[in-house]
């Protein structure tokens, strides 16, 4: 690890982290405009053209606002709880493959923060840590509503983590590796000549289950019950003032981007375009790796934005689940279906490839 490699890794980590951190204000703007579009009203258009400066105005407001710490609150856990949910949201990025590789100063730089050969297991493990921010946040604010909201939100997130893990394992059955970069490389080319070799083509039903579990993991509507205004006075972050509340929101939006990134990597072929292979693209770009890398970066993030808009679109069209419907859907429907999906793919693989 000589100094140039260290410098390049540092720049690469900073670049990917800042890209995802910048999606948070953009996402809040897209969410407001998307909601306005769906409800046929203008949405934020006062601050700057089309309300584009609105997110920055929000950020400044959150920074300058007073941050009241209620009296009988256990100090240490109260202040670090929002950061306990922001840290895992940042750490999950490490395994996300954003592109193939660039050639910088004669060095081949992978467009991925860390090329782990247990990449998928790393993502599952770190995303299971987001629960602590909610639990400690709910508990430390010493408020009946936030305690119950914290418990319900945590039970929802843990119940939907199992189908998420089993659906992802269903895909590992075909890929045969946990390294996210190899998974994306496997998805290049075509299947039976016509369809692209993407995960969604191999297991469309598995993708649907992963999508539902992803909605629940990020507490997005229709799984929004624990933190709704109507039910529990904004659930676990009732007692949180300005910036700490914004940190919870930031963690949620970052989780949204990373889980969309995971869906793109596992099911929609990461940085590939359906029918055109990388070598073909390289020839078109006159053999320069960096332009190809940039192009792959753009392709990856357009797919992620498509998923982000799907999240916003569903949020304003689908009603909210009650808590027991939520639990019954997770334990009664989703887990058996993901197990079924696993068995069916195993049997199909045996019939196709077994002796």
């Amino acid at each position, binding site marked *: 690890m000589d100094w140039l490699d260290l410098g390049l*890794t540092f720049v690469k980590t900073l670049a990917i982290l800042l890209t995802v951190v910048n999606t948070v204000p953009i996402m809040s703007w897209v969410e407001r405009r998307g909601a306005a579009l769906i409800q046929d009203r203008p949405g934020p258009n006062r601050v700057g053209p089309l309300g584009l400066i609105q997110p920055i105005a929000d950020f400044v407001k959150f920074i300058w606002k007073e941050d009241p710490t209620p009296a009988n609150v256990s100090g240490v856990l109260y202040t670090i709880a929002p950061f306990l949910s922001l*840290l895992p949201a940042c750490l999950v990025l490490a395994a996300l493959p954003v592109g193939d590789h660039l050639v910088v100063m004669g060095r081949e730089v992978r467009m991925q923060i860390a090329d782990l050969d247990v990449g998928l297991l790393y993502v599952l493990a770190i995303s299971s840590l987001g629960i602590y921010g909610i639990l400690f946040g709910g508990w430390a604010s010493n408020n009946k509503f936030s305690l119950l909201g914290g418990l319900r939100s945590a039970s929802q997130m*843990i119940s939907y983590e199992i189908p998420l893990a089993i659906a992802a394992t269903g895909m590992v059955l075909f890929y045969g590796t946990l390294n996210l970069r190899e998974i994306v490389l496997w998805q290049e080319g075509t299947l039976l000549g016509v369809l692209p070799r993407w995960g969604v083509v191999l297991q469309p039903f598995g993708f649907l289950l992963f999508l539902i579990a992803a909605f629940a993991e990020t507490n997005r509507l229709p799984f929004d019950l624990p933190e709704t205004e109507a039910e529990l006075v904004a659930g676990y972050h009732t007692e949180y003032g300005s910036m700490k509340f914004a940190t919870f929101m930031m963690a949620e939006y970052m989780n949204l981007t990373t889980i969309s990134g995971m869906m793109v990597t596992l099911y929609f072929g990461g940085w590939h375009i359906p029918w055109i292979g990388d070598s073909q693209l390289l020839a078109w770009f006159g053999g320069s790796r960096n332009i190809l890398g940039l192009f792959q970066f753009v392709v990856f993030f357009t797919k992620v934005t498509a998923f982000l808009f799907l999240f916003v679109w569903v949020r304003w069209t689908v009603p909210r689940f009650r808590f027991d419907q939520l639990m019954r859907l997770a334990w009664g429907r989703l887990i058996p279906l993901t197990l079924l999906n696993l068995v069916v793919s*195993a049997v199909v693989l045996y019939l196709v490839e077994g*002796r």
Partner: protein
Amino acid sequence: MEAFAPVGLLLAIALAMCAGILGLTTWLGPRRPSAAKLSTYECGAIPEGNARQPFRSRFYLIAVLFLLFDVEAVFFIPWALVYRESLAEGAGLLLAMLVYLGFVVLGLIYVIRKKCLELY
């Protein structure tokens, strides 16, 4: 161990970012505490009693069942990794997993039949 060096770097940068946010708010935010602001928020009603009534043990059951089924879900990962190569020597691994899965599904049926997840 070398592959996880950038993860440590990312953790350091994320910690610096969190410290920056916390520092910025405590430095810039005004501090004018007043009794109304410091009491717990109960949609305006006066908060009475301790916030800690014991809740029913349904939440405990959910957490335990999550722990047990999470442990079972983890054992699918090594199986899924090795399954495709093992197809060359016949369906041994498939049968092994079907037996394992049978008991997992048995546990799931028990959980659903006993209605221990039907919350209020």
